[in-house]
């Protein structure tokens, strides 16, 4: 409980093109917590991420990230944007993309063969190899990233977000484009890093089930505002049904875990993503 909260917001509101997406949002996320941001399509989850990164200003209220103004702590944040896929013709290796996450923001030009003479360059290469190994991407990290499958690209991008040992990880739908076994293994990996290295994780997700066992807190964004709380408080049938505007059931398994059933986006979000369906208005 010492030190500033990792993410803190008070009466925050945001507007894009003069339209208020959400307002009156209060957040208080302690260092080391694993937090999920949930909510229907188009409600402003990615917009919240942009606010935290400092690329979009609030229209009202205040927000602090790692104790600073948004954008002020960019060196200590690992970020994975939503659904990027690299152009198939991009002839840059996966390991080079991960490497950019380590020192891509430093001025200067990479010098080929430097790792043979400089200890710092050798350490950097070793760190990149270590983190690629950690996410299990060693087998394909030397191939051009444009030629890798969506899931393979995603693992490398998670490695890129991790490579600088950030204090805060902001992941926008990192499990997207992974199959079910990979969803649980990547979720477990991120949870392990969060616990072992004390990293705060803020993960936007559509399907809460793979991360449910690890969550300390849930932020639900619905039209207008947000509800935050522990999973047990927020993930209940009546609250979810109200937020999504669809009947949703939450069951408790024998070991006390929760399982969300009937979550609208989970199986079908690839098809309804671009249809721009109007969200039913909860709250």
């Amino acid at each position, binding site marked *: 409980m010492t030190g500033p909260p990792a993410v803190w917001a008070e009466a925050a509101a945001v507007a*894009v093109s003069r339209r208020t997406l959400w307002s009156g949002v209060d957040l208080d996320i302690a260092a080391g917590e694993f937090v999920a941001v949930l909510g229907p399509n188009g409600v402003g989850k990615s917009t919240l991420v*942009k606010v935290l*990164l400092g*690329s*979009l200003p609030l229209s009202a209220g205040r927000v602090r990230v790692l104790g600073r103004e948004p*954008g002020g702590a*960019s*060196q200590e*944040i690992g*970020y*994975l*944007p939503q659904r*990027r896929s*690299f152009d198939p013709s*991009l*002839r*840059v*290796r996966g390991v*080079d*993309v991960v490497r*950019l*996450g380590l*020192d*891509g*923001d*430093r*001025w*200067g*030009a*990479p*010098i*080929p*063969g430097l790792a043979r003479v400089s200890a710092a360059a050798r350490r950097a290469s070793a760190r990149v190899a270590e983190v690629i190994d950690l996410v299990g991407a060693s087998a394909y990290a*030397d*191939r*051009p990233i444009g030629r890798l499958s969506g899931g393979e690209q995603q693992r490398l991008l998670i490695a*890129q*977000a991790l490579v600088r040992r950030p204090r805060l990880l902001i992941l926008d739908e990192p499990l997207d484009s992974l199959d079910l076994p990979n969803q649980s293994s990547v979720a477990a990996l991120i949870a392990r890093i969060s616990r072992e290295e004390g990293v705060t994780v803020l993960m936007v997700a559509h399907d809460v089930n793979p991360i449910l066992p690890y969550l300390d807190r849930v932020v639900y964004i619905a039209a207008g505002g947000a509800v935050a709380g522990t999973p047990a408080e927020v993930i209940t049938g009546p609250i979810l049904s109200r937020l999504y505007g669809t009947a949703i059931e939450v069951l408790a398994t024998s070991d006390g875990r929760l399982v969300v059933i009937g979550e609208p986006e989970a199986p079908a979000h690839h098809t309804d993503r671009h249809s721009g369906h109007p969200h039913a208005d909860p709250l």
Partner: protein
Amino acid sequence: MALLAVAAPRLGWNPVSDIDQLLRYHFMLNALRAGTIVAVAAGAIGWFMILRRQSFVGHTLATVGFPGASGAVWLGLPATWGYFGFCLAAAMVVGLLPRRALGAASSGLSEESAVIGTVQAMALGAGFLFTSLYHGFLSGTTGLLFGSFLGVTDAQVWTLLAVGLAALAVLVVIGRPLLFASVDPDVARARGVPVGALSFLFVLLLGAAAAEVSQITGTLLIFALLVMPAAAAQQLTTRTGRSLALTVLIAVAATWLGLAAAYFSAYPVGFYITTFGFAAYLLAASTRLVGGRPRRAGR
């Protein structure tokens, strides 16, 4: 063409005497100097242009150089001034075109294409007007559009060198963040990389490169040095450093071979540089098809 008035150089089987013939005349020395400077700058900047998918912008900037050069000649000024003045001014304008306000820097480029296409057509039209206004210059139009290596002055070599070195120096300073911003703009921005400023700066570099290359290959053949070497190198390796070095090497080789071939024959230099660039690309592509794949899969 006018070249034949100088001498009648003949290619023989003795490389020493061939090179001796090649370097005998000052105009040819200047052509080789200018070509080398231009090839190095164009190779490196072209490599980033391909990565950023800005070939269309590059071509348009070169096209704007055409009315610049022909206008300068019409007014009795050195063509070099026209090239650099117009290309760099056009680069400023393109660099300041409004982009999509939020995110999606890579897709913001498609928005430019309508404006840029319009400018390109207008530039070609205006250039043709200037060449017509300057009576008797019409034969020079071919040189401006398709390249010529005659009459490179000492002053022009120095200008090319100064601009080329300045552009390369900037590229060395911004290289890594520019690579980051080109491959992965969203994450780069989140890391504090000034993506917008870099993109503006790169368009300026592209304007300088387009102006430089136009003076060797002509306005319409700039891709011989801006695209072909980078495309060939990317076939051969996916390692960024090696790929860049190889690009510069191929660009310089194509330029030297092209200038020499043009010197010993009656056909224009633009054709030869393009041909050597194309040959490098074909060779690289077939090397990759034949032997590249299994080797890379190994590790």
